[in-house]
């Protein structure tokens, strides 16, 4: 069983003629099973897990308490008000949905591109997607005010004899996020079936046997099941790819279909998608580095994996920077005084502090990834990626709030400030995310064992012949 080594194998240096191994050290089918499954089979969780879980679950309780308070009292407990009617809730929603996109990209898009290095991180990333989308879904659900009428958002017959407005991007969001959560869930679960079966077959207590037994549906690993599994995986990947692109596109439509300066610009769809992947990968790295350190997965999630992820962060960061430049240039070029003002206001107006935070975190910080030394230093990566996530939250904040607080009519201008409820709910959403995530780490297979087994060097040679 591979344990965390003091100095890890650096598989990032390479000879172009040789593909470095995706799993370092001695590894066999059995060792992978043992290494990953044992993490879920520990009778008692490690102390650090318990402490982290205690903190995150308290934050979650706080979140639910605040939601109850919000529903009982009303949306006025937030800072949303004229002219900034969209405040932190929408920003948080876009933030979390964006983070979720990396998981699907790793699972689906990298799969379609035959990037085998994804196999040790995809389970982890997909779990992150599910939990991030859960957190995301909370905010639009509670911000509607009369939450008990939330079913009006769906095309169900209701007492008003009215239907939802299919022409509105807010409704497209409902369908998009629902589809995204459901398809990601199915994709994640389907991928986990073989590994759940592994846990079932190794289960030592009756409770675990029954639980994993039900969850794995009786999977045996027959060639028929694998055949269907592989085809289903390919189809779901092919479906999830346009899905993930379309979901954040539709989220961007929330803003871009309007006429508000700073919002109505045609580049929003690909810009938002690139930004989502950017923040998502940053979050994966932020979670993965401690996890691999702590759970002893360095031979499975190697420096090469981390380096590849850093490169993707850098690439998508450049795309986000490109979009900033295009918007800025066209604002000047277009000659539209409102649009021009919107950009000057962002940089020099009352929210300039948010704008410059955003620029330095999103454009400047990832530039450090040009240097190989930083790309291969896990804790430096975490630092930069945390900055990236901060920057991406601020990007959504800047877009939403600066444009609304100062749009066409100066007499309507106003400064938005969040309330304590806004802030604590956001913090609470991290609590929910980490609670779910810690539960995942404790009880479910963190690494896609079956997939990693099929990319082991010995197995790969067999595949190639």
């Amino acid at each position, binding site marked *: 069983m591979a344990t965390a080594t003091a100095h890890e194998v650096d598989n990032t240096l390479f000879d172009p003629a040789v593909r470095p191994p995706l799993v370092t050290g001695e590894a066999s*089918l*059995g060792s992978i*099973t043992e290494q990953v499954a044992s993490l879920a089979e520990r009778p008692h969780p490690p102390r650090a897990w318990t402490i982290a879980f205690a903190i995150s679950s308290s934050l979650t309780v706080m979140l639910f308490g605040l939601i109850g308070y919000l529903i009982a009292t009303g949306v006025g407990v937030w800072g949303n008000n004229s002219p900034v009617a969209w405040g932190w809730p929408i920003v948080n929603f876009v933030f979390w949905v964006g983070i979720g996109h990396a998981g699907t990209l790793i699972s689906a898009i990298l799969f379609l591109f035959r990037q085998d290095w994804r196999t040790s991180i995809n389970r982890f990333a997909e779990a992150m997607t599910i939990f991030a989308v859960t957190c995301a879904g909370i905010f639009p659900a509670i911000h509607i005010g*009369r939450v*008990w009428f939330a079913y009006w958002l769906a*095309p169900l017959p209701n007492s008003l004899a*009215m*239907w939802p*407005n*299919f*022409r509105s*991007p807010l*409704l*497209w969001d409902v*369908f*998009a996020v*629902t*589809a995204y959560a*459901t*398809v990601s869930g*199915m994709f994640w679960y*389907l991928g986990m079936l*073989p590994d759940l*079966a*592994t846990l079932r*077959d*190794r289960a030592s207590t009756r409770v675990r046997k029954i639980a994993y*037994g*039900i969850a794995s*549906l*009786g*999977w*045996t*690993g*027959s*060639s*028929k*099941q*694998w*055949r*269907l*599994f*592989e*085809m*289903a995986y390919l*189809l*779901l990947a092919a*479906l*999830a790819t346009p899905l993930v692109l*379309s*979901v954040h596109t*539709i989220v961007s439509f929330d803003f871009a279909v309007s006429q508000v300066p700073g919002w109505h610009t045609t580049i929003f769809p690909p810009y938002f998608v690139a930004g989502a992947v950017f923040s998502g990968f940053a979050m994966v790295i932020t979670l993965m580095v401690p996890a691999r350190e702590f759970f002893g997965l360095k031979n499975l999630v190697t420096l090469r994996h981390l380096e590849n992820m850093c490169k993707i962060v850098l690439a998508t960061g450049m795309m986000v920077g490109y979009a900033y430049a295009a918007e800025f240039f066209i604002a000047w070029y277009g000659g539209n005084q409102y649009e021009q003002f919107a950009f000057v206001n962002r940089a020099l107006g009352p929210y300039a502090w948010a704008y410059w935070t955003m620029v330095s975190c999103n454009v400047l910080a990832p530039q450090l990834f040009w240097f190989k030394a930083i790309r291969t230093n896990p804790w430096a990566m975490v630092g930069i990626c945390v900055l990236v996530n901060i920057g991406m939250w601020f990007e959504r904040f800047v877009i939403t709030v600066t444009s609304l607080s100062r749009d066409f009519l100066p007499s309507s201008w106003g400064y938005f400030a969040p309330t304590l409820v806004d802030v604590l709910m956001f913090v609470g959403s991290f609590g929910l995310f980490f609670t779910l995530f810690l539960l995942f780490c404790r009880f479910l297979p963190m690494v896609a064992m*079956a*997939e990693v*087994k*099929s990319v082991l060097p*010995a*197995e790969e040679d*067999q*595949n190639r012949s």
Partner: protein
Amino acid sequence: MSTATTTRPAAPAESEVRIGGLLAEFTSADAVVAATRKLRAAGYLKLEVFSPHPIHGIDKVLAAKRPLLPWAALIGAAIGLSGGFWMAWWMNAIDYPFIISGKPMFSFLPSLPVAFELAILLAAFAVFGGTIILSGLPRPANRLFRIPAFARATNDRFFIAIDQTDSAFEANRTRSQLYDAGSAGVESIPILDPKESKLPRGLIMTALALGVTALIPPVLIAKARHTTSETPRLSLIADMDHQPKFKAQTTNPLFADGRSMRPQVAGTIAQGDLREDAALNRGIRSESENSDSAMTDGFPGDTLLASLESEGVPPSIADGDTLQTPDWVTDFPLAVDEKLIRRGKQRYEIFCATCHGIGGDGDGLVTLRALELEQGTWVKPTSLHAEPIRNQPVGQLYNVISNGVRKMPGYASQIPVNDRWAIVSYLKALQKTRTATSEDVPPDVLPNMRELN
């Protein structure tokens, strides 16, 4: 977990005991692929291979058909796509049309996102559902699970299972062929007692109970939606249902008289209701001797008196009564021009002609119908060309329109002040048509008129 042995055990003596098949263990993917090839060549067509990860190339060796899952996905996508477009069309353009800022009722572009998402969702459902079902899952009871060695199928070992229904199967021969093919250990697959593989009764009962309980809320909701009730609705969330305010017709302990509806303070008049101009608003001369009457005359009671007076009936209602005939104006309190008269004509034809007739003779459609029906309570309206009416001052005519007379209701609430004067002016013109002669017609108009036979 049993470990694989490398030596071949002797064939069990109980070869007459029926077994469900044979399970052979292999240590590597290469080994199991080679073995499969060999066994298929030997005539075993029903064997199945088990592995902890997908083995590439095994499908070819097994001559397996490609699953039809892509078609399921396509069908799901087609249903989702068309469903999405249909919803946007029917729900927003047909059933309850949404009129939104110049956008067409139905348009392909904005309907595409929903249709697209639904297409993907339904396709994914089809793929997921199809995979689970076609895999034969969920299958909690599998005789292979009874073999301890099989637990490594999801770990690091590969297996071939040959069912006894395979035409080439024969316990001993197959066993030795499996060892020849490179197996590290062969086990018998037990035949499961059907009773053992059934779901426990307790589980089924619980599931049924839960299912029935889960059905209760929808049934109750359906019942509530399709039946009527005399009791008020239960509001779980009070929202703004019970507001701390007093409604009309209720008692109110805050006031001495206990009423919620408060009367006007004496002497107050609502803004816009002062209507000082008595001539205009009530048709009464405001410079009359009794200046009080300017404010108080012209109200409903006065008309009866006035009409009685004009018909020569002396006031005999009560002795000592100080009711007086109001001093009606005889001149129009506003400028009379063609525009006013035309307005009056239009208003007359809307409000008055139904009973009084187009020509004012009292032969309106309602009157004709009422007489036809011989209701008995209907009084034919006086002809407006009758002598008493012709002699009434304009202020009185105005008053009659406002407050009514005898069976005629007052039209003050329906016709604004100026319009009533317009009607009066038209009335005068109408009356003139019966009394005028050719001398009254302006010389330039006269040639255009012709004799009526």
